[in-house]
Each structure stands twice: as structure tokens, then as C-alpha cells.
């Protein structure tokens, strides 16, 4: 008995040290690259959502849940992550549907063009913060690059141990708790960088989306059917990377075949009222705050037509959302103030990104 106590104690101390070190060494995304913090923030939600967005930066930079709430009383969350590939989307959705059942799921179809994992960094940002479960393991196995190991997703220390030499004060400050950086998954950027030119798209040899992408699209669709959730396919109005006609046609066909709604917002730029001289912060790759609010307002009407209810009558919900709105407007104000003062956003320009200030 004494022996068991002794070894148990040693194991406990060892595990404690291990997890403490691990918590210290994993990146916290508090000093830049807020995109990396998106996945973890979802798990702090206390109330359910009627609409869930899944997809890449074209959802989390372009759709604002607060606008949907304020204008339509629609509760929503953007479960996006940078360059979220379709298998990431599928497993993220699966994880979400195990926790709540929304009325609609909105999927941005840009990732249909990628049939293979692209980069370890994006895998990490999509998967690191998924809670450990069979679902996560499947997600890792589906996503990992050749030289990545499953074990390093279960114990991220094995991946991030070499960060010991890059630790900063903020790694200690945010060791146990990190501030919220997004607004229900929406990352706010109020600065403007107008579109002056868009490079001509190059010709491709093959426009057909890969089988594996269709497989996952089917999985997403079937999952939604099973749970009784309406699936809406969209293509966000980002001007670059180019969305080819040939790709669009495949999505139109797919939606038609399965009775889904597919909206290509590139066709509705005028209807939405987007002005790419003021509504983008990076020459048309992403919308800025004003662009996202216009798009969300336009999309809210579509969601309302699809039967997504107005929850503003619900007092408990209203209280929760009131707080969200407050934080949202505070950040918007702060960003506009900073822009007025300095002409650029410090937060938005991490070292290494060479976006010239306030063009």
C-alpha cells in the first residue's frame, strides 16, 4: 500500500509538471495571429446558436454574428479557422453538433479546391483546441501532414517543446486563461485597403473538384440531414483567390442535385452594397468591419426567409448577447479611434506581415 502511494505520488507530480510545462509552451495567440485563438473560444459559449458557420477566413472575417443578432435577433457562431480545409470543417461541425443542434449550418465552399493538407500551421490552428475525443483523433488522422504524429496532437508538448527559447512574459500571463479575441468567432478588422487591381487568374488544366472533397461535402450534408439541420452553401464575396466559373457551376449542380441553397455572393456584390474601395482591409481578400456588417445584414434577411427565428424576446439570451454587443462596439470604437489617430492598427500588423499602413 505504501509502495502504491509512493509511486502514485511520483506519477502525479510527474504528470502535473508535464501538463504545466505543456500549458506554458503551447502558443496562446495573444500577441498576434488571433486567428489561432478562434477554435478554443467556442467552448466558452454558455448559450446555444441557431446558425453555425463553418469554413476558412472567408467566414470568420466576413460574417458578424453580432450584426445578425442586432438586426435580426439571430443567434449564431462562426466556427472558422485559417485555411480550414473541408475535412477540418466536417470534424469541426461534428464536434459542434455533439454539443448543440442549430437550425442551419452555413458552409463556405472555397476549400473544395484543396484535396490535400496544405500546411502544418493551419492544421494546428484547426485541431489543437478541439477537446480530446474520438472525433478529434479522426480529425487529426484525416488532416495530418506526412511528418506529423497523432501523439503530438494528443500531447502538444511534443510539438511545441522547442518554443522554450521563444517564451515571452505573455506565455506566463496567459498560462491558464486567455482573453477573448473574437466576437462569436468573428475577427474584427476596421482598417481599409481598397482594391486597385486584381491579378488575372491563371488557366488551370483541371477544374474538377477532387473526389475526396465531394466525399466530405457529402458527409457534411448527410450529417446535417441526420440532425435535421438545414445546410446552406455559400461562396463569400472575396475577390482573390479567384473563384472560377467552372468551380461555381459544380457547386450550383451539387446544390441543385441535393435540394440545397447555394449562394455565390460574388454575383451579388452590388445587391449587398459592397464597395471594394472601402469595404476590404486587404485589397479584396477579406471584408473589413463595414463590409462584414453589410454582408451580414444582407445574409440575415436570407436566413430570416429560411425560417431562422428572432430570439430578442428571450430575456436570458438578450442579456448574454447584450454583453457581446457591448464588447463588439467597444472594440470597433477602439479600432476606429486608433485608425483616426495612427492611420493603422497595431494589432493587425504583426511583425513579418508587410501590409503597408493605411493606404
Amino acid at each position: 500500500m505504501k509502495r502504491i502511494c509512493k509511486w502514485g505520488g511520483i506519477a502525479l507530480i510527474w504528470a502535473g509538471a508535464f501538463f504545466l510545462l505543456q500549458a506554458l509552451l503551447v502558443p496562446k495567440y495573444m500577441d498576434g495571429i488571433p486567428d489561432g485563438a478562434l477554435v478554443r473560444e467556442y467552448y466558452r459559449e454558455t448559450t446555444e446558436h441557431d446558425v453555425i458557420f463553418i469554413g476558412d477566413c472567408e467566414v470568420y472575417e466576413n460574417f458578424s454574428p453580432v450584426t445578425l443578432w442586432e438586426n435580426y435577433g439571430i443567434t449564431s457562431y462562426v466556427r472558422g479557422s485559417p485555411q480550414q480545409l473541408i475535412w477540418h470543417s466536417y470534424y469541426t461541425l461534428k464536434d459542434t453538433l455533439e454539443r448543440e443542434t442549430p437550425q442551419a449550418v452555413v458552409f463556405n465552399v472555397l476549400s473544395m479546391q484543396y484535396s490535400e493538407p496544405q500546411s502544418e500551421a493551419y492544421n494546428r490552428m484547426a485541431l489543437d483546441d478541439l477537446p480530446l475525443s474520438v472525433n478529434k483523433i479522426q480529425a487529426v488522422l484525416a488532416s495530418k501532414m506526412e511528418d506529423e504524429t497523432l501523439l503530438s496532437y494528443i500531447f502538444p508538448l511534443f510539438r511545441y517543446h522547442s518554443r522554450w527559447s521563444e517564451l515571452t512574459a505573455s506565455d506566463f500571463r496567459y498560462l491558464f486563461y486567455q482573453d477573448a479575441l473574437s466576437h462569436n468567432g468573428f475577427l474584427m478588422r476596421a482598417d481599409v485597403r481598397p482594391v486597385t487591381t486584381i491579378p488575372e487568374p491563371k488557366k488551370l488544366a483541371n477544374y474538377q473538384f477532387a473526389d475526396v472533397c465531394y466525399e466530405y461535402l457529402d458527409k457534411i450534408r448527410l450529417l446535417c440531414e441526420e440532425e435535421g439541420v438545414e445546410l446552406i452553401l455559400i461562396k463569400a464575396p472575396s475577390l482573390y483567390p479567384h473563384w472560377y466559373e467552372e468551380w461555381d457551376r459544380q457547386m450550383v449542380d451539387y446544390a441543385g442535385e441535393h435540394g440545397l441553397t447555394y449562394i455565390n455572393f460574388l454575383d451579388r456584390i452590388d445587391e449587398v452594397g459592397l464597395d471594394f474601395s472601402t469595404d476590404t482591409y486587404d485589397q479584396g481578400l477579406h471584408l473589413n468591419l463595414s463590409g462584414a456588417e453589410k454582408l451580414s445584414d444582407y445574409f440575415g434577411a436570407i436566413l430570416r426567409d429560411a425560417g431562422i427565428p428572432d430570439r430578442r424576446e428571450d430575456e436570458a439570451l438578450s442579456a448574454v448577447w447584450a454583453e457581446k454587443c457591448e464588447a463588439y462596439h467597444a472594440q470597433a470604437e477602439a479600432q476606429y479611434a486608433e485608425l483616426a489617430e495612427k492611420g493603422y492598427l497595431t494589432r493587425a500588423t504583426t511583425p513579418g506581415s508587410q501590409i503597408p499602413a493605411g493606404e
Partner: protein
Amino acid sequence: MKHNGKKLSALLLALLLCLALLAGCGGNNGGNDQAGGGSTNGQNSGADGEGAQEASAFVFVSNGVEVKMNAEADPIVEALGEPISSYDAPSCAFQGTDWIYTYDGFQLNTYPLNDVNYVSSVVFTSDAVATPEGLEIGGTREDMIAAYGEDYTEEYGMCTYTRGDSQLSILFGDGAITSIEYLAVLPEQ
């Protein structure tokens, strides 16, 4: 044990056969083929160095400026002169910025690595430019073979030649060349 003499010769024969087979196909030794070097440094001495007589890579030339794949991009961009337009596409979450420079007849694309931009591709956009070997948009398959030979792979009407750390991809539509693209084969990280 008496007849083992025969068995042994049979064994030896089988063995030699195996050896011959393996010597012929070989090479499936996974990550283990740092042949015999005394160091893991890739500085494998002797036998390895001489083996790599690579054909030199494809180089695009515009107004006397050589555009090599995987070359540092900034000096080339400077030498090429003012582009018609340039476009920077920061990737999601600050993982680096790709640049696209548009010139008359072609586009120059770059990728970043450790804060330096390198040439990732040159895409022809019109027949205003031609490769140093004389191939241009609108040309024929015969032109292509005359210029670059038969050693290409073809997929969906796109023919690709690989030389050194570069590829030349030529796309056909209705029997004529519709696109020519130089592509960098990314160095192993």
C-alpha cells in the same frame, strides 16, 4: 544432414537470384538511404556527389533579365522594371505574403521563406512573350516537342517538363497552347 550439399547449393542459387533482383529494383529503403556517409550531414563524400549531374533548370528571360525559379525575387523584380501592377496576398493568420507582379505578357509570383521572397512561378498571359527556346501561347504541340523534347508528363492536357528545381507546364486547348507556366519545385524544408 546427408544431402545438405545439394540443399545448400539450391539455397545459394536462390540467394544470388534474390540479390540480383534486389540490386535491380532496390531503393525502397525508406528514409535510410544516406549511403554510407560518415556523417549525417548530407555531405556524403565520394560516390554520391558525382551521381547528380542534373540538367540545368528552366530559366525565363525577359528583356535580358534572367528569372530563375527559387531565386531571390527582389533583385529580379528590380531589374525587370516597373510592373503594370503588383498585388500582395497575405495568407491567413500571417503565415507570409505572396506577391504577384503583372508585366506585359506575364505574371511573376513569389513566395516568402524566412522574410525573403523567392520566385515561385512565371505565368504567361499573352503571346507578347516567349520562352528563350521560342515557345509562346498559340504554338503547337510540335513546337513544344521541337523546343523541349519528348520527356514530359501529361495530365488533363497539360504537359509538364521537370528540370532541376523547376517545371515548365504547357497547357493545350483545341490543339494550341493556351498557357505556359514556369513553376518552382519547392526546396525540401
